[in-house]
């Protein structure tokens, strides 16, 4: 089975494709409107921050790509954390809301809104864990 290198443009494209197949996510996020920057902080072998853009709209992913910097797009939410925590999240070893509460990730944006879509958040992570991933760092 082909493995997608993380982080990479191929990985985030595969994520978009997988997310758009996820019926549980679609149901849980049917009213969701809001885009994200997912940022891997520098450190742990990451020289400069790595930025993904994911646009989520009514249960679907409209766009997903890498960006050169966080300044490239202004989004409703920014989720930021070190590489090791992203790895755990993708491997399904961390619950996203619990991880935010434990300060393993920093969230900017309307936390109240996120807390009303906890099931959708959980499905976002489940989707990531379904992608055959090769961690390159």
């Amino acid at each position, binding site marked *: 089975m082909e493995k997608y290198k993380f982080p990479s443009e191929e990985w985030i494209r595969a994520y978009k494709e997988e997310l758009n197949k996820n019926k*549980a996510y679609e*149901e*849980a996020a049917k009213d969701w409107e809001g885009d994200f920057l997912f940022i891997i902080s520098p450190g742990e072998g990451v020289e400069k921050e790595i930025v993904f853009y994911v646009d989520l709209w009514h249960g679907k992913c409209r766009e997903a790509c890498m960006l050169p910097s966080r300044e490239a797009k202004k989004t409703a939410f920014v989720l930021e954390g070190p590489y090791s925590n992203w790895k755990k999240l993708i491997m399904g070893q961390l*619950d996203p*809301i*619990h991880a*935010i*509460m*434990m*300060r*393993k990730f920093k*969230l900017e944006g*309307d*936390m*109240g809104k996120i*807390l*009303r*879509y*906890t*099931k959708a*958040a*959980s499905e976002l992570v489940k989707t990531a864990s379904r992608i055959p991933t090769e961690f390159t760092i």
Partner: protein
Amino acid sequence: MWEITLPRTIVIADEASEYLKLIEGRKAFIVTDRVIVSLGFVDKIKSYLEEAGLDVKIFDEVEAEPSVENVLKCVEIVREYQPDWIIALGGGSSIDTAKAVWVLYERPDVKIDEINPLTKLGLRNKAKMIAIPTTSGSGSEASWAIVITDNKEKRKMELASREVVPDIVILDPEFTLSMPSRLVADTGVDALANAMEGYVSRWRNDISDVLAIAAIKIIFTYLPRSFRDSRDREAREKMHYAAMLAGAAFSNSQIGVAHAMGHAIGALFKIPHGRTISAVLIPSIEYNLREAGDRYIELAQAVGIGGENYEEILRKFIQRIRELLIEVGEPLTIRDLGISREEFEKNLDELVDKAMMSTGTIANPRIPSREDYVNLYRYAYEGRKIDF
């Protein structure tokens, strides 16, 4: 890193409320309801505060299952009065209202639905808070949760901030003696569910475990006694402590599907919280067994239930809970709540939508899909044993 947050001071035993005579400050604002006024509790608390040299103002219009409008009305009065103590006197509704009012008083720039665990509120610049529960159930006095009903969206907002855990909790057994048995049961079952869900939650930890187990042991022993006899002072007192322990337990871990489902039913059908929880409690446990059977076995053993194998222990444990609910006259099904099949089916989609939005969904040991929730509700409506 996981922060455990508990009240700084907990005052217990006979005449605990006399602690108020030692409070230092200028103005106290009491948040309560008319029943509590009619029972004479407000006069008593007011007199102690006045003895301590404080001016006192009272808001006695807290509703059962308080709404956003109810909170906003109270906030206006608080802002004008400028107290340095906010005192919640009553059940979970009064305490939750007081917490929300406190936030909006300190932070006029914050909207009620913006109260969440990650927003720094910076409370305690204007006032501190004392909670004096008069029921033994929600555990709001020890929790960082606030449940306020949004009538427009017909949903219970599960707000939370570690900063709203009261500074002082006064657990005066005297206040529990006038509780009617129905209220004892409704609130006691809420305490039971708080402790059980806190114990099996995916967010549990060693500290919340200790609190939950302590609460459950007390509840199994004393809830039936407290229900049967309002003069059983020991039982009422123990249940008062158990509710606080259970509140601290779930608050420092999380609620689960019983609360997620119960909040949705309560918001749509205006049914008291404890009863909605009771109606879904057994199905929620049966649903969770696949992922958390070992945790329920620990709970069973903590209340003295044994058996030759795990299946037998779990069967006996669930039967014991069923008997407890029957003994205190609590509903075992959603149908028992007086909701017709037609009304139930008409609202099922919305019930599921609301349950899926609850934090209890993702912190539950087994995370339900939409289909699971549909089935959970249908099985709970009839009281069918969960087989999926």
